[in-house]
């Protein structure tokens, strides 16, 4: 039990909590707009950024952040132009990012055990500097969502009507993918670039089962994200050898299963009216 409260565990809780709160927050807008795969694609592209960072001697998180930002904005531009329709285009981007990262890393002798940490998380080896960097990135996400909440909701509910009523939809879409990129970079050390999209989606799916409004779904999703990251970390710390990135995502899946059962039972007990 004592290992739950040692220094690296506290650092992990803080970093995990920051991502556990911010990921579902931004995930609500992505899921509602059926853009969940943008998070996945950005994560894959960020791997290429980590590799390029290693090649030029830049810390992985900054390489990941830069590539995620450029990649996310490019993806949104392609989507807005209608050139990113269908799963084949996104699959191409996934594999391009991974392959590019693999080639660059191996060419520079960086394909070591630490690259597994980039892909699947390495939260127990983070420093206080990493914690503050992750907290800053997540604070930017939370702050931007708080500032532009009503505009982001209006676009998430109905993009066409939002555009017709004068909202700067294109700028808000770019803001959304930029925030996604920040979150992907923040989540790299927590659950890894391959699993970070899970925290954008699974807690949101859980929140949707328990709520009757967008705002309450968002609050439930944040609670689910926070619970999942902390529970996943505790399990990994107690067991001692398993990867925390995996336990966090499995904990999120468990929370989702519980939410699905609770939500279904609540719906049976209190059926909503749907009169004419």
């Amino acid at each position, binding site marked *: 039990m004592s290992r739950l409260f040692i220094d690296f565990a506290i650092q992990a809780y803080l970093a995990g909590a920051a991502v556990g709160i911010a990921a579902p927050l931004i995930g609500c807008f992505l899921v509602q707009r059926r853009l969940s795969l943008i998070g996945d694609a950005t994560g894959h592209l960020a791997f290429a950024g980590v590799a390029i960072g290693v090649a030029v001697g830049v810390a992985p998180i900054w390489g990941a952040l830069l590539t995620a930002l450029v990649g996310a904005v490019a993806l949104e531009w392609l989507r807005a132009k209608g050139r990113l329709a269908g799963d084949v285009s996104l699959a191409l981007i996934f594999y391009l990012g991974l392959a590019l990262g693999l080639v660059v890393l191996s060419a520079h002798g960086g394909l070591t055990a630490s690259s597994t940490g980039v892909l699947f998380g390495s939260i127990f080896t983070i420093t206080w500097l990493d914690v503050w960097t992750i907290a800053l990135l997540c604070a930017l996400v939370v702050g931007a969502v708080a500032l532009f909440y*009503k505009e982001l909701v209006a676009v998430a509910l*109905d993009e*066409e009507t939002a555009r017709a*009523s*004068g909202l700067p939809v294109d700028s808000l879409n770019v803001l959304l993918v930029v925030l996604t990129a920040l979150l992907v970079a923040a989540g790299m050390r927590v659950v890894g670039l391959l699993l970070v999209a899970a925290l954008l989606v699974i807690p949101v799916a859980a929140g949707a089962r328990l709520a*009757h409004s967008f705002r309450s779904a968002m609050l439930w999703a944040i609670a689910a994200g926070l619970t999942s990251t902390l529970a996943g970390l505790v399990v990994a710390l107690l067991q001692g050898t398993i990867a925390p990135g995996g336990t966090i995502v499995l904990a999120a899946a468990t929370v989702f299963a519980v939410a699905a059962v609770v939500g279904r039972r609540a719906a049976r007990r209190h059926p909503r009216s*749907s009169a*004419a």
Partner: protein
Amino acid sequence: MSELTVELAGVRFGYGAAPILDGVDLTLGAGEFSVLAGANGSGKSTLLKLLVGLLRPNAGTVRVLGGSPTDPDIRRHVGYAPQGLRMATSLPVSVTEVVAAGLAPSKGMLRRLDRKDWTRVTEAIEAVGLGDLSAECLFELSGGQQQRAILARALVGHPRLLLLDEPTTGIDQRLRPALVRELRHRADDGATVIAVSHDPDEFHEVCERILVLVDGRLQRITHEEFHHQFHEHGAPG
């Protein structure tokens, strides 16, 4: 004549080679209430989308409220209700949230909705008869109730131009007269109202004229002329 709020001159539009709209001319002033009728595929929804700037004409000019329909400052004074629900149902959304979204453009960026705004949201929800269902999830309501919520979203900002695509479709017959009267009140307050409908009779008591799209052209006729032309020789819808 009152201030012109809608000005179409020689508007042509088509998705392919054949134009849907072929030389549409129209001027409407503040406070005018018009029903837009026509057969399926005649271009009614297309005409509304041109007026809100979601489509651009192939030829001719479209001006609303004295400016371009793509100007954000103009768009903030336009209320648009598309036909049916156009949102993903991944997450629940309450009726109040949908209607409040209609205030986002006019409120301005970075400004939170205040108590006065929430009062307007409540009034708009009550105006469409959804007061008891304001906290309910939109996707759990009937099609008619969803349509009323969409109508409330268009009304909440008290726009100067209301463009409504089949606003009464799916709504209980008993509730329609009250909704139509609410639209008439908006026109009396100075708003220009264009409502697409397959049944202009619903608006007989409240609107001045019927705009009918036939073969890509707009005819401006009275209710009596509409009956004479289409009910006696076959309805356009």
